[in-house]
């Protein structure tokens, strides 16, 4: 690396810095660049989801009529948002300031929202994890979905007696899958309730559009978290660059 350039803290490291501080600066710079790349990738993904949703809405409008597919139908009566965002604080490392962490709560009514930061995705309940590791590119939802799919496959295997589980393990796996199924049913009911505003019989394209925009919402929450990480690492990089100015 070249000698440090005071106008550009991203370039170079002063030769007389101790190795520990040099490592911290590089780590912060890497975290910043990783967050920046993740931010741009997620925005690209959001654009794709939105385009998909717009196309499906246009198809639904063509089959159902433009007067039936309109946002004015949704503001005729008082209703509270079924999908919300839970806000918590995340601390990464001992020296970093806490930053906001957003968690999407889909199709959950106020009574059922838990005080702990549980995450509801497609009817499957995940526990929120406070991580002190570097944030990795890619959706937490995908990681959670993978965990859940492995948990589901384990419960299926238990039902088929493929694996030799103890009665306690078997019952806990069965209760998990039952709870997941119940949550899924609740979410489906709420999805249908949102769709029912447009009439009793709606186009399959409208359902597909609903799913696309749900995906877009998940991406949006990821973007918000990445933005938070980006701005946090940006401020750390700025702080680290000050002694060299």
């Amino acid at each position, binding site marked *: 690396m070249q000698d440090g350039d005071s*106008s*550009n*803290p*991203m370039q170079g490291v002063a030769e007389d810095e101790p190795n520990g501080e040099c490592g911290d600066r590089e780590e912060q710079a890497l975290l*910043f660049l990783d967050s*920046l790349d993740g*931010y*741009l990738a997620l*925005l690209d993904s*959001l*654009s794709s989801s*939105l385009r998909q*949703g*717009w196309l499906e*809405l*246009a198809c639904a409008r063509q089959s159902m009529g433009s007067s039936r*597919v*309109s*946002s004015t139908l*949704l*503001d005729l*009566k*008082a*209703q*509270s*948002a*079924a*999908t*919300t*965002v*839970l*806000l918590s604080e995340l601390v990464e490392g001992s020296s970093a300031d806490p*930053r*906001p962490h*957003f968690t999407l709560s*889909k*199709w959950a009514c106020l009574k059922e929202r838990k005080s702990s930061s549980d995450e509801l995705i497609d009817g499957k309940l995940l526990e929120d994890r406070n991580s002190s590791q570097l944030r990795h590119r890619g959706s937490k939802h995908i990681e959670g979905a993978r965990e859940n799919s492995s948990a589901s496959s384990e419960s299926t295997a238990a039902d088929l007696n493929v694996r030799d589980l103890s009665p306690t393990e078997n019952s806990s796996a069965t209760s998990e899958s039952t709870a997941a199924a119940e949550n899924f049913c609740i979410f489906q009911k*709420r*999805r249908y309730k*949102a*769709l029912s505003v447009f009439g009793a019989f709606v186009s399959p394209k*409208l359902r597909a*559009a*609903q799913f*696309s*925009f*749900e995906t*877009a*919402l998940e991406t*949006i*929450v990821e*973007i*918000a978290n990445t*933005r*938070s990480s*980006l*701005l946090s690492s*940006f401020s750390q*990089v700025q702080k680290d660059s000050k002694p060299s100015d």
Partner: protein
Amino acid sequence: MVQDTVTGFLLAGVGNVDLRRNTNYLIVDSTNLLCFSILLSFFSSIKTTVKAIEEAFKEFTTKDDIAIVLISQYVANMIRFLVDSYNKPVPAILEIPSKDHPYDPAHDSVLSRVKYLFSAESVASGRR
């Protein structure tokens, strides 16, 4: 257009209408202007003025029950000074593309803020 984005997100369950018919969304006329916040806010009006957009933006960013504000980038460009001068962590302001105006990273307020790390020029001089 913007109606589709609002309709889509309302389908996803983020629409909120209180007893006084105050909505958390605003559709800004037919020229692809949209503001939207989670928990959640859109803008809905006909021939909405820039001042009305600014007032709505200020309202949504000062509410305690809003965590994320979504704003079409085209709308954000109309109130760019206000969006760029906003620097609180919550609610998070996210600029999203609209149907007729794709996302442009060059105008994103967050990217503009960090852009100077990759260039000797400041953000302000880059805009001029």
